[in-house]
């Protein structure tokens, strides 16, 4: 009786691994990648703002704007002291540069926490997969 059940169980476990755990893992990893890309954007923005602060004496700023497909046009910003930053859900808040930096710091902390938790989830799912595989092997 037991020996007959075993292959069935193994099959079920494997199905579980393949269809549930691996799918979960993929989702979690995708989310984490998204968070990471947000983080890198933020860090880039932080860098830009820091550069702007260094050249604070000039109020105006020249830059190049991408029109799409890597076609750039010169752009001029008259007042570089204020910056609009996305706070999520399509809302933008006008910050001064220092405020923006503070906001970015908080935001990066938050994102790092999220990414950490996602990493944790991912490793837990991996552990589950390992466990199930190991069990099925023993069986």
């Amino acid at each position, binding site marked *: 009786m037991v020996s007959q059940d075993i292959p069935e169980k193994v099959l079920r476990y494997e199905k579980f691994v393949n269809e549930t755990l691996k799918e979960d893992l993929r989702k979690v990893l995708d989310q984490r990648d998204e968070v990471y890309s947000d983080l890198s954007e933020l860090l880039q923005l932080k860098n830009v703002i820091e550069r702007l602060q260094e050249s604070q004496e000039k109020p105006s700023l020249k830059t190049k704007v991408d029109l799409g*497909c890597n076609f750039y046009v010169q752009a001029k910003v008259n007042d570089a002291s204020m910056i609009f930053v996305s706070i999520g859900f399509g809302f933008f808040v006008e910050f001064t540069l220092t405020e923006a930096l503070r906001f970015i710091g908080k935001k990066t902390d938050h994102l790092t926490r999220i990414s950490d938790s996602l990493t944790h989830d991912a490793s837990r799912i991996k552990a589950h997969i390992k466990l199930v595989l190991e069990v099925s092997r023993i069986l």
Partner: protein
Amino acid sequence: MEARDIDRLKAEQLSAIKKTGERISQLEKYKNDYDNLKKQLKTLPEKVTHDVMVPFGKLAFMPGQLIHTNEITVLLGDNWFAEVSAKDAIGITERRVADIDRQIAELNKQKGLLEPRIDFTSQLQDITQNAGGLVEIKEDYDAEKEQAWKEQHRENVRQHRQWTAEGMRQGETEEQEEGEKEVWRRLEELERRELERDELGGCEDNEEGNEEGIRPRKKSVTWEDEESTSSSTGNSSGEDWDMDGYSDSEEQRLGSVIHFSHTTQPVKGCPPDGSSSEDDSKATIKSPADIYQQYLNSLKPKSILKRPVNSDQPQQSKSVAASVTTPVTLLPVTPDMTTTSSVTANVAEAFSGTVVERDMGDNIVSLGHQVTTSGHQAPVVTSAPVVSPPSHTAENPQPMSTFTGEKPQEEPGSDSKQETATHSPPKRVSKFRARRMQQEAKR
């Protein structure tokens, strides 16, 4: 083929089509982007400045203005940029769009090629599932079963043999006697027949019976018979004998045996057609050098007509007079060769037997560099012009000999040719000896 395999094939083909479709949609997107960009580029230079929000990444922007609206920096690839006007930028977008269109067309073609395969695969599926009234022929192979069958088969064979052997042994005693009688009867019959045939026609019988034994002997006989008659059948492989003017027709029919006797016979026994006795006694041509030698000699007298008296360049050709006892031949000899040369037995062969006196001017010229005082007439012995047999290859040496004979002294460039012409060791004559001869003759 299993249904599973076909399913897999189908899945692969579907995924290939899907990939192509994705690529096409991606390219369509690019094309859309370029189209939008083109519109923007058209409107951009209409104003000097545009109020825009200048983005900093995805997350931030600042209010600002676009300036220098007719200066557009375009990424060409690999981080190289070009600054162009808006109009040029539009041109660039158009070219890129054209390229994308081409790629899309190619991908569509590819898709068109992939889609029929799916149909074919489903047909194949029908076949394997016996849907189309077609059956795949299969034979299962089971190693153990096969082995068991082999064992069984071997056993059966052994049994059968045993059985037959037993049967033989049983009937052996009667059968043996019967068989012997049969054999003897047969033998007698054969003997009788043989005798009959002998009586009927001896020679025929002979030929029939001993055909194999006789044939090789017969072959050689026929050859020797026909060799003298030499009925000519045009043969392609007898060139080596044709050189001697001998026509050999038997070569084709007969084997290598014929070849041997032919080579020995014609040379000695039958001088076939054109070659004169002089020629034969003189030299058998063994090498091209021999040919040169003979024809040079034969054409020597002709050279007298045009030879200019010029004692400056006498090296090319010398008239060589030899002693009375030895046959003498006029030879164009290069100095370096004559110094070391000795009279060999072949000199005699090269002599044609005719002596010609030459003009004294010749001798001055030809011996000038060695005999400074030779201004008088000297007897020059030269080989007679030998009529060349037509069977010999006379074409090649002819121009060479006339050339050396007519104006050898004038052209140093002809030296090399002279050398080749006279480059036969057997016919050298010591030039010192010749000089001595000439000086003696003068006194």
